[in-house]
């Protein structure tokens, strides 16, 4: 119990230390990482990426300590057939936002290092423009909160 508390504390301190200052070029909002469904060790995450700068920003890749692999994907439905397309690298044009939402762009988070249950702390790391890093922490959400 105590180790979990300190683990969470360290995680939040790390996130605060890595959080972008006001006026940051890249911001993440509405990050939702869903619990893995029973029998699977993977899940999806949704969010909004905003480029607040005057230059395009390239999202090189996304990682998470809680998952061996995180991939930016888009579900594309064409002729009623759903396919997942890889997005990396993803370019966010200047002063625009990109929305990751069910049935569209999403983070596919697979090979979870431990069971992904609602309430568990999770960190998502966005690597951009070759050497930029934005770390966002949240807790895993129940699937019951899936947007309709």
């Amino acid at each position, binding site marked *: 119990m105590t180790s979990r508390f300190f683990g969470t504390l360290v995680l939040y301190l790390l996130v605060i230390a890595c959080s972008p200052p006001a006026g940051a070029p890249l911001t993440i909002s509405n990050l939702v990482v869903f619990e893995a469904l029973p*029998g699977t060790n993977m899940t*999806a995450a949704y969010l909004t990426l905003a480029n607040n700068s005057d230059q395009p920003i390239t999202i090189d890749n996304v990682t998470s300590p809680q998952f061996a692999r995180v991939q930016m994907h888009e*579900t594309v439905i064409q002729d009623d057939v*759903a396919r997942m397309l890889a997005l990396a690298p993803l370019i966010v044009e200047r002063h625009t936002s990109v929305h990751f939402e069910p049935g569209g762009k999403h983070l596919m988070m697979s090979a979870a290092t431990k069971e992904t249950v609602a309430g568990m702390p999770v960190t998502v790391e966005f690597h951009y423009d070759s050497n930029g890093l934005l770390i966002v922490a949240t807790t895993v959400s129940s699937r019951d909160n899936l947007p309709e």
Partner: protein
Amino acid sequence: MHLSRLILVFGLVITAFVGGTLFMTLAFQGPRDQPQHATILPQAGTLPQFSLLDQDGAEFNNESLHGQWSLLFFGFTHCPDICPATLQQLAIARSRVLQGGAADFPNIVLISVDPERDTPDVMAEYIAHFGDGVTGVTGSLTELRTLTAALGIFFEKSDGENGDYAVGHSAAVIVINKNAEFHALFSAPHNIDHFVSDIPLITESS
């Protein structure tokens, strides 16, 4: 004389306005007792004989579809986005329709297009999340292709990294009637309100 002409013109304007509003309302709303979002087949299609397995390992075949309406969705448990979202939408629609006083709702059937990973045990664990009225089905690729070909369902495995392959698949929800026939379909993208409004109309009309 002048006043009566004014009244006549005013009456015509009011009549035209009311008539136009009524026409537009009916034209855009359509008949209320017809499904507005599902595509109803002109003639229900007979399914070929197939034999798959449900989440308990029991045979799931044509007979399993007889006597009740079913909603078939083809997907897989390692699908992160559209599969859980569609099942969740169907589960919510089921809940709303039953809470609205309907006696029953079609059985929701997830048929895996990834039998390599989706064993009956995996399916059992997965579908339990979506509540009552959901069946998980898997089986051999041969049997799966027999069924999907008749329904116009496409699926194709695509190579990924580290064994993380995906399966592209049709996203339609297929409506099977009580005679185990292909009756209608909902095309993607799906919407809970569409299911809630159309499914009772489909099942009550036949």
